[in-house]
């Protein structure tokens, strides 16, 4: 009886601790959310431009863009963050201040995720049957109208599931910003954990990431429902 009581007390105090740690992490969580939102805002449209480059009629543009996508997908994002942050110094001997840490993370994430989104968009665009373009051409739509009225809406629907996957990965990838000590949640959790010799802060961060992703999944599901009015 006594031992059960003690165990319950232990759990209770752990939950209290966890709550306290989560409160400590709350501020840094906002930085995480910022990285997430800004990355999507920049990489999603950029991805579309990259996708156009990848499908360009011009061989040189196509080759350059292909190489870019290949490097972005073939090397660790952590390394890319370091390159963006330290690159200006090694290449131009320009010393960027601490203020450059956050922009460097956003740039690295945006160009990395743009590559992934580009490939998703390209697959989506190429999956639209040629008959859709031909029908539009016969009906007299010009190229711009055809793309924006006929093709793109259908592409959106088709790419939603893979975009959801990328978005969920992005939530977890934001933690890579610790590489250059941007004060997002994971960086903060590690600091506290090291200072207090306690893994609880890292657990708390895990809870945050998990809840964040539940929200992301919920939003994406709503979007998919919104597009389910046609097949």
């Amino acid at each position: 009886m006594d031992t059960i009581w003690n165990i319950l007390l232990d759990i209770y105090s752990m939950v209290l601790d966890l709550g306290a740690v989560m409160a400590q992490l709350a501020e840094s969580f906002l930085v995480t959310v910022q990285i997430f939102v800004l990355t999507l805002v920049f990489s999603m449209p950029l991805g579309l431009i990259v996708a156009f480059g990848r499908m360009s009629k011009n061989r040189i543009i196509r080759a350059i863009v292909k190489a870019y996508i290949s490097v972005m997908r073939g090397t660790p994002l952590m390394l890319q963050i370091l390159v963006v942050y330290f690159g200006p110094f090694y290449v131009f001997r320009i010393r960027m201040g601490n203020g450059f840490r956050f922009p460097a993370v956003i740039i690295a994430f945006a160009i990395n995720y743009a590559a992934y989104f580009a490939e998703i968009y390209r697959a989506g665009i190429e999956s639209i049957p040629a008959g859709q373009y031909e029908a539009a051409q016969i009906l007299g739509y010009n190229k711009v109208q055809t793309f924006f009225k006929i093709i793109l809406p259908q592409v959106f629907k088709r790419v939603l599931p893979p975009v959801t996957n990328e978005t969920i990965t992005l939530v977890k990838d934001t933690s890579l910003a610790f590489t250059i000590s941007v004060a997002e949640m994971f960086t903060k959790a590690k600091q506290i954990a090291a200072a207090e010799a306690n893994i609880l802060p890292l657990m708390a961060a895990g809870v945050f990431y998990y809840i964040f992703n539940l929200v992301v999944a919920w939003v994406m599901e709503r979007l998919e429902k919104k597009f389910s009015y046609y097949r």
Partner: protein
Amino acid sequence: MGSRLLEINHMKKGFDGKGVLEDISLTVEEGEVVSIIGPSGSGKSTLLRCATMLEQMDGGELIYQGQRAVWEKTDKKGDVKCVLAPKDQMKQIKRTFGLVFQNFNLFPHYTVMKNIIDAPVSVDKISRKEAEERAWKLLRQLGLEDKAEAYPFQLSGGQQQRVSIARALALQPKILFFDEPTSALDPELTVEVLKVIKELAKEKMTMIIVTHEMQFAREVSDRIIFMEQGLIQEQGTPEEIFTSSNTRVREFIGKMNA
């Protein structure tokens, strides 16, 4: 008969050096219904695709209502190449014809109504109200008035094909091309689509129809063209074709009726 709507002179088309249309010449007058029959691979679809400029022809001339859409030009090296009419003229020319596809190619994210009115509104720039009035008239005519707000996936194949005919008619083309409009349909759905085309024929709509439906071709056509190996082998009234002494024609029709 009325004016000449379409004139094709010596049309040639090949894919990767393999000739598909060898030398096609053909004229269509206003109000005429012309069916094109012939074995698989004889170039019927390619002919329609070149005539509607989905495919660029390699040689020859394409004329709509006396306006040249495509013609031959010899470049400095002495090579013959086909050139297209300038953009603004081409826009005019393209309004004179419509095309109904074998597999409909409706826009899946648009309702039936939007499928029909979108091109008139955003291409021809007519008012939405006028486009809708036109669309309702067509929907009634084609027996689809209760489907205006449906999406294509909610319709049967026959209904989808009728919508795609309505979509083409909404732009008020002078000529309507059909490429095997019923070959993606079950027999009972085929009937409803063929009925619609027959009604259009009665209203003197000019049509060029590629079809494997021999009985239908016989009933609806003013003229039937038999194509084989990229050439028009024989053409004439349905009676002439169905009683032709040309063994290839007889064989083909016999096989199709079997």
